[in-house]
């Protein structure tokens, strides 16, 4: 064992009191840099370099978790004592079983060509300034942003069940966005994704692939055009969702709904529950035959990819919905055992050293269909709306009733894309909406979309996940709801 963090953790948990039925320790070291160019000037360069250790243990039915920034044997010993005191003071609870796990051993790292943290700040600024300059020009554009983020996370994990593994993840992403205002009208447009960009577990080559500057004139022009575009009509119609919006639709109305801790009411007071019950597994019709959903932590480039989850369970690929029928759920060791599963779904993830693992999405994706290209799908659609890039989202605490708004809609008339429409929105009920999906574009249109702002847990944890998606068509959707 040559990794010093692994050595330190191993020695620390070996000294934990024997009354602990289970102990795990995680050392997390994070380096990151965020750069934002706004309205022609650098708005900020923020870099972070930090580390710490989180210890989780169990005594009887009580769990305790304590985190310290001090990576020394003495401090970790203190964290164990603190976690122990917390666990032992908990009101009495039955000891919930955990699924068995093969001890995690070895090292995992994600593939990347160009280390984003080795790219000079000058090069990053040059790329961002070049794109941001092309966003400006029209006085109605009151804000123009170009930003990028880079991050490296090294983790060492040990447990009293024999796990001893290390991982290294490299992530990066970038985006451009504008806000245009004319009187009381405000419109936003962004690329390649809203809300801070489409990150990936990959090197700087991922950012270069976006060609931000090439897209900037279109982004600015569409924002200006939206200011005077006709409003999205109200009513029921056929809708084609672009991959970016479909990714968020999957995230909110499938991914969260299939978190097993929610089904078992573990998150009822905060994130909410689910309209899906554990006994629905294997029989519930979630959507149409065209709906095939998979959780896959082994996908190259996914923000939800890893070697082992934060309980030391090996990354796996789990079908969740096959031909519209629910067949799986997202689980950790305790939730899986609670419904009699033999193994965890490998979805226990923690946001940094100071948070404990909870059930999270990995890469929850819709499998590609057979509808060909986006152009093929539009041509086959006749009349409807094409909705592109998320602007607003909201869903109830059972993940059933949702309302989304996108930055832009385009009319589909006679199988062709037509004029731009402003303020598009749509609403639905989860199983009805997915039952109306009758076509998904083919594999060449499918790609992973990273989301970096998935909030859950108390204290709050911000998780990074990806969703593979291709444009898809939905029939009889209520639009123009806002």
């Amino acid at each position, binding site marked *: 064992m040559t990794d010093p963090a692994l050595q330190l953790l191993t020695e620390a948990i070996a000294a934990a009191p024997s009354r602990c039925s289970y102990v795990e320790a995680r050392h997390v070291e994070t380096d990151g840099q965020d750069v934002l160019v706004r309205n022609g*000037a650098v708005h900020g360069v923020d870099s972070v370099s*930090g580390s*710490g250790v989180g210890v989780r243990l169990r005594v009887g039915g009580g769990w305790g978790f304590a985190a310290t920034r001090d990576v020394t044997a003495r401090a970790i010993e203190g964290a164990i004592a603190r976690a122990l005191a917390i666990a032992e003071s908990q*009101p009495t609870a039955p000891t919930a079983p955990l699924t068995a796990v093969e001890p995690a051993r070895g090292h995992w790292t994600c593939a990347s060509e160009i280390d984003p943290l080795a790219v000079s*700040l000058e090069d990053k600024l040059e790329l961002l300034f070049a794109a941001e300059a092309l966003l400006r020009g029209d006085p109605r554009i009151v804000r123009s942003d170009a930003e990028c983020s880079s991050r490296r996370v090294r983790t060492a994990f040990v447990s009293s069940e024999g796990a001893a593994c290390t991982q290294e993840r490299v992530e990066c992403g970038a985006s451009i966005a504008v806000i245009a205002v004319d009187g009381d009208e*405000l419109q936003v447009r962004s690329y390649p994704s809203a809300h801070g960009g489409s990150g990936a577990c990959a090197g700087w080559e991922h950012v270069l692939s976006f060609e931000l500057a090439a897209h900037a004139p279109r982004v600015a022009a569409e924002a200006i055009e939206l200011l005077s575009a006709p409003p999205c009509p109200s009513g029921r119609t056929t809708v084609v969702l672009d991959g970016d919006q479909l990714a968020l639709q999957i995230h909110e109305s499938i991914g969260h709904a299939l978190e097993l801790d929610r089904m078992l*009411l*573990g998150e009822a007071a905060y994130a909410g529950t689910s309209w899906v019950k554990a006994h629905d597994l294997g029989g519930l019709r979630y959507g149409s035959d065209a709906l095939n959903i998979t959780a896959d932590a082994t996908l190259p480039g996914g923000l939800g990819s890893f070697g082992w989850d934060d309980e030391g369970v090996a990354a796996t690929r789990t079908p969740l919905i096959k031909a519209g029928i629910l067949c799986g759920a997202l689980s950790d060791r305790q939730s899986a055992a609670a419904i009699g599963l033999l193994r965890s779904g490998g979805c226990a993830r923690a946001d940094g050293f100071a948070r404990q693992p909870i059930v999270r999405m990995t890469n929850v994706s819709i499998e590609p269909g057979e509808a060909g290209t986006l152009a093929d799908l539009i041509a086959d659609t006749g009349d409807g709306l094409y909705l592109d890039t998320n602007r607003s989202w909201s869903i*109830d*605490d059972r993940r059933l009733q949702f309302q989304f708004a996108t930055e832009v809609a385009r009319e589909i008339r006679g199988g062709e894309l037509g004029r731009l429409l402003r303020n598009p929105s749509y609403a639905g009920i989860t199983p009805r909406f997915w039952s109306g999906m009758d076509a998904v574009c083919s594999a060449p249109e499918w790609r992973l979309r990273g989301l970096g702002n998935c909030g859950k847990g108390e204290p709050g944890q911000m998780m990074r996940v990806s969703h593979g998606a291709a444009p898809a068509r939905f029939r009889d959707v209520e639009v123009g709801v806002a």
Partner: protein
Amino acid sequence: MSEESPLEIAERALALAGPDMQVMVVRERSLMSRYARSAPTQATAIDDTSVDILCLRDGQTAVASTNRLNDDDLRATAARAHAAARAAARSGPGTHPGPASCSAVRSHDGFDADTATLDPGRAAAALSAAFEIAAEHGLEAFGVWTAGDVQTAIASSTGLRPHDRVSDAFMKVVCRDADGRSGYAVGTATAASSIDPAALARRAAQKVTAQALTELGPGCYPVVLEPEAVGLLLEFLGDLAHNGRAHAEGRGALSGRLGSPVAAALIDLHDAPLTARTLPRAFDMEGVAKAPLALIERGVAVNVVHDLRSAALAGDGARSTGHAGLPGGAPWGPLPTNLALAGGAAADAAELASTIERGIYVTRLWYVNAVREKETLLTGMTRDGTFLIEDGRITRPLRDVRFTDSVLRLLEATEALTTGRRLVSEGEFYGRRFAHGVLCPALRADGFRVTGATTG
């Protein structure tokens, strides 16, 4: 040997960092105990100290952060901030006007030493009390209890040395029956002893009735919003309307409207950072002293909040009001964090409901998001206690509804407020712990726009 204080760490880091620097040190100690189905689930104790080193150069800002406190790491962190600011400066002048000048920070009553002990026994007792009350009502309890002790210190090359220590406590109780009907209550304060777990559990339990849920179709209804619902709407208003950066950029909801009526005359909204009943703060993250600030007076919009950068952007003599969310100013702009809405004349929520022929009573809102920012148009769901008001009385539980409405429109349509106010909070602690809440009454407004409902 006594532990080095945040101010001592900040001064040491500043000495290592060199000129044109501001160092902010935040030490968080916290304990959080979660529970579900009347059993403890997760408990998290955190002890972390972060150091943010801000380098200002030719109007450019760069921040480097670490939680490694030895001299070598602090020196390296400062070097990263220096190098980044130099690189940014090569692109031309930046938009930051320079560091804050020294100003005296005012004292407050925001720290309670007893709360700062973070006693796990107190957490356990709170959970047990909630379990017991829920069981008495044939319900299960879900929620969280948490307490925190946060020290903040700033040392800058310009001589700033403010330091502050605050404590906070929060408890949430959701009581739920076997059919999923639920009730909700939260308490938040600077002192854990101010929170009565049993009383919260009783309030939550009383909202769970055995009656069948009634469906309510889309439309506009008179509404009574409990303080928890009002507080969330006001937090969105703080961002969409009173954010000085958005205002200066012409995209804020009050752009061109300061000095004009924007709400009913009974609306008085302030930022009250030193009021004992809020979660007080002495200064912002640029070291600017906090002070009370009127935002809406008798329905007239009077102020937005600023950090140093947004004030410079606004020009016309604007000054920072002490609302920087990060060293150098947060990318999202300055936000009010101690909102206080003045109370009215109604004795309680029942009196508010007494004049409504048919309307909605809302305990809390959930998953609220902006739809059109400049209109303060939001959408979200009701949750954990939505009721029908008929003939002036709260009569039957409703299935949760979706609303899509403007905060400013609701404040314009506000007819009455309760005298009593509650400090309300969602108790969310993403990243570094920063407890905040809104002190507000319940209100009655006309025309609450329901646009959908969840199903069975």
